[in-house]
Every structure is written in structure tokens, then in C-alpha cells.
């Protein structure tokens, strides 16, 4: 696409792109209408009512109530249309389909690290299949970053200490930009990469490509053993820590009576700040692993624990945060 050689739009390469562009055009058209109307009015008035002699004064017009109401109410109604449309697109963008392919992204000054469930790990490059929803769970090892796919019209901040997520379904095979859009220091503008959208077969072939030491969950399992997590987290549930079998997606009751849904964010927090949410009936004995396990490895551990819950739909609620307590309820 282009006009006079200047490109005006990024590629429409995801299922969101068409909708967001249409919304964009709707607002452009509405804005252009109002901008033109006012511009034409002030120019025409400026010419027609120009001062013709030194002593001339304008007509005494104080105002007009119906007119005021009209130009308050009509823009309000148009604004509500924009809001509704935008909100509906947003909900769509914030609701990953259950069957979405899971990928993890970790931002770090100044690179994007991606991990596939099958075990592939890549830096500043992301391979995804075309026509299949992909959910990216994002976090950061240091400062804020933001994962942005302009051709997919979506982005999400990477926030240290918690998981955020976005999803997309690529519709066109090709290579597109990945940008970091949250300023993160010296080499912020170097924190860019490309997303490679592939035909499903090519993607499978790429996944099968060598150099992978087992799946992400398997790597997590090895870490689980290295860190001796199994000493307490016995399968039987009789250990000093709760059993981790089949917990993902379930609601657990905590020591203080509050409840929490077990999702990726909860699992992560239960490792790094293990004392904050203690499952009822257990003692706060587990050491906090804050700073001891890298975000990459945390992802592996989380994925391993998830693999212990085969039936669970592991879809985390959008915007789920680490400490998801309800501030209106005090202990």
C-alpha cells in the first residue's frame, strides 16, 4: 500500500487488523467531517463578516440554547458509538480462544526471548503458524517493556513481577516487525525483531528442527527436581506443601479464607513470593525464590506444573495479576 511512494498503513496480517482499521477509518471520517465543518465555518464567517469600516461592531447574539444542546448531544452520541465499537474490539483482543497456541515471551534489556512449548527458544525472532490463534504470555526480567506487533494491531506491556498476555491470529504468511514500545533504556530502539508467520507444515518442520533439549515442560520438570520441589510437593497431597496434580484452573482457599484461581500468574507468584498466598491447611515454610530463578526458568516450571493438570483449560483471565486480592475486603 502506498501513496506517492509513502506507505500509509502497516500490513493487515492478523484477524484484528481489518476490524481495527475499519474502526480507525470510521473515526477518521467522523473527525474529518467535524474538522471540515468547523474549518469551513470559520473561514466563511471570516470572509463574509470581515470588518468593512473602522467603527463596525458585530451583532449582539448572546447564544442559543437549542443549538448548544444539539452540539453537545450529537457529539456525545457519536462518541458513544466509538466507545462501543472500540470496547467490543478490545474485549475480543483481550479474550484468547481456549485452543490458542501458548508461547512465552520474556523482555530483557534489550531483547525479546520467546519460548515454545515444544522446547524451541528464540531471541528477537518469533515463528508462528498462520491461521491459528497464538497466545503470548509476557513478562520482564528488569524494567517495563512492551511487546508490539504493528501488523497484527496489538501490543501489551511486559511488567516485571507478573504475567500479562496478548493473542493474535496471523492471516498472512510473511515477516513482520516486532517492536518494544515501552521505553526501557539505552538500546530501546534496538529491542526489535521479526515475527515469521509460516504455513502450518513449515511451522511443524521448524519446530522439529534440531538443538532442542526436550519440551518446555520437560525442562521445567528437570528444574523441579534440581530445586527439590518434590520433597514437599508430594503427589499424595500428604507432603508439607500441597500436591500440584490437577490444580490449574481450580479455585483454592487460602489461609486467610480468601480464594484464588490457579493460573500462570498465581503459580509464578507462589514460587517467587511463596509466602503471600498460602493454601489453607499448610504452613508458610517454602522459601521465596525471588531472584533465584530466572524468568525463563520460571516459565518452564509453570509450564511443568500446568502439564500436571491435563484436563485444565489453562487459560488465565485477562489482566490477571499476581496478587489478585480484593482491596475492598480487609482482613
Amino acid at each position, binding site marked *: 500500500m502506498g501513496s506517492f511512494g509513502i506507505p500509509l498503513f502497516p500490513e493487515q496480517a492478523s484477524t484484528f487488523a481489518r476490524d481495527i482499521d475499519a474502526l480507525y477509518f470510521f473515526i477518521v471520517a467522523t473527525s474529518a467531517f467535524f474538522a471540515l465543518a468547523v474549518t469551513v465555518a470559520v473561514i466563511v464567517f471570516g470572509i463574509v463578516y470581515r470588518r468593512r469600516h473602522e467603527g463596525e461592531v458585530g451583532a449582539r447574539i448572546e447564544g442559543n440554547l437549542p443549538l448548544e444542546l444539539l452540539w453537545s448531544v450529537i457529539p456525545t452520541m457519536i462518541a458513544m458509538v466509538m466507545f462501543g465499537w472500540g470496547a467490543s474490539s478490545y474485549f475480543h483482543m483481550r479474550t484468547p480462544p481456549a485452543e490458542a497456541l501458548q508461547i512465552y515471551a520474556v523482555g530483557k534489556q534489550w531483547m525479546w526471548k520467546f519460548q515454545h512449548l515444544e522446547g524451541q527458544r528464540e531471541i528477537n525472532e518469533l515463528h508462528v503458524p498462520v491461521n491459528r490463534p497464538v497466545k503470548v504470555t509476557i513478562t520482564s526480567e528488569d524494567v517495563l517493556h512492551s511487546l508490539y506487533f504493528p501488523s497484527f494491531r496489538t501490543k501489551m506491556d511486559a511488567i516485571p513481577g507478573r504475567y500479562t498476555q496478548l493473542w493474535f491470529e496471523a492471516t498472512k504468511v510473511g515477516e513482520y516487525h516486532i517492536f518494544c514500545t515501552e521505553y526501557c533504556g539505552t538500546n530501546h530502539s534496538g529491542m526489535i525483531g521479526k515475527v515469521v508467520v509460516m504455513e502450518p507444515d513449515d511451522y511443524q518442520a521448524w519446530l522439529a528442527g534440531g538443538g532442542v533439549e526436550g519440551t518446555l515442560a520437560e525442562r521445567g520438570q528437570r528444574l523441579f527436581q534440581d530445586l527439590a520441589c518434590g520433597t514437599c510437593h508430594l503427589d499424595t497431597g500428604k507432603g508439607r506443601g500441597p500436591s500440584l496434580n490437577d490444580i490449574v484452573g481450580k479455585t483454592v482457599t487460602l489461609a*486467610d479464607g480468601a480464594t484464588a484461581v490457579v493460573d500462570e500468574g498465581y503459580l509464578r507468584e507462589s514460587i517467587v*513470593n511463596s*509466602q*503471600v498466598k498460602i493454601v489453607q491447611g499448610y504452613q*508458610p*515454610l517454602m*522459601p*521465596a525464590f*525471588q531472584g533465584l530463578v530466572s524468568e525463563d526458568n520460571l516459565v518452564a516450571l509453570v509450564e511443568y506444573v500446568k502439564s500436571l493438570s491435563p484436563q485444565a483449560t489453562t487459560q488465565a483471565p485477562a489482566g490477571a495479576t499476581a*496478587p489478585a*486480592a*480484593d*482491596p475492598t*475486603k*480487609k*482482613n
Partner: protein
Amino acid sequence: MSNAVAHAEAHGHAVPHDALQHHFETMQQQKEASTLGMWVFLLTEVLFFGGLFFAYLLYRVWYFDAFAEASRTLDISLGAFNTAVLIGSSLTMALAVRSAQTNQRSATVRWLISTIVLGCVFLGVKVIEYADKFEHHHVPGPNFVSESVWAAQEQIFFSLYFTMTGLHALHMIVGVGVMSVVTWMAAKGRFDEHYYTPVEMTGLYWHFVDLVWIYLFPLLYLVERHN
């Protein structure tokens, strides 16, 4: 908006008061301007502390156990004593304003000095408390030491504790400084029943500082004391 406005319609005095500044028409107008100015300033203070209180509230809900445990390391008797001292200083301040209103110069000075003394007592106790925290390495940052399993989140509590009480103490130091000047002015006989605005304004400020502490005390010292 306009009906909420009390207009200054007072008539000018034949002989202007010494304290009347040139750009005001009457003492009444001058006083109302000062009062409104002070209240608007206190409004900014409410929002200033408001941001801090929200941070406290959020983390207290998130990390209640850590907050409860950290709070238990504070000395409740010192906190309660300081609360009493500060409320007492508010009383002496109110009485100072009253003495100024009724043109009792020596009583005004006396009450103002009492307020300053009580303010200094509060700050002195605060110094003792801070020294204790330094000794026990409860100051967040690289030197923080805690045996607790909630050590990390305890640091948030202590960060807020020091920021909140530190800013409060800073306000008190400013208050004591201003009050010293006002006391000197009162001793010099600058005030009478027509002009005591500085005393009154200092009073408003001091009561506000008291008011902040009224919230800080239960929030910081009394998170969970019953077990």
C-alpha cells in the same frame, strides 16, 4: 458556583489597620483571602498524603501478613504516647487561637510555646523510634535484615512507614519553625482582636498535621495486634 461565594461587602474603616496591605480594601477582605488561601493549601495537602495512603492501602490488602508482622515491631506505647502529645498540642493550639481572638497577648504566647514544646516532644519520641529501627536494621534497602518469611513485603511496609512518618515529621518541623516566628510576633504585640490571621492560619496547619497522624497511628501501629 456563585451562590457558594460569600462576598466581602464590608465597608472600609475610617482609619486603616496597620496590618492592612495596600492591595486590599478592608481587613475583612484580607482575612477572608488568607483563610481561603490556607484552606486551598490544606486541600493540596490532602491529595498529597492521599497518594501515599492509597499505596499503603493497596499493599496492606495484598500483603496483610507481612504488614501485620512488621507493624508489631513498632512500639505501641510510644505511638500512643505521641498520639496523646499531638492531640494535646492541637488543644493548646486551639487555645492559642482563642487567646488571640480575645486579645490576650501573654496567654497567646504561653499557649503557642506549649504547642511548640509538645511538638518537639513528639519529634523527640520519633527520633527514639527511628533510632530503634536503625539499630534493628528495619530500614528498607541494602541493610535491611529480617528473619521473617515475608521479609520482602515487610520492606514495603517499612518503606511506607518511613515515607509517611518522615513526611509527617517534616511537616511538624516546618510547623514548629513557623510557630516560633508567630510566637515572636505575638510577643511583640503584632496581633489584636482585629488582626490575628497568622495565629489562626498556623493553627489550621497544625490541626491538619494532627489529623494526618490520627490516621497514621492506627494504620501503622495497629495493623493486627490481637494475636
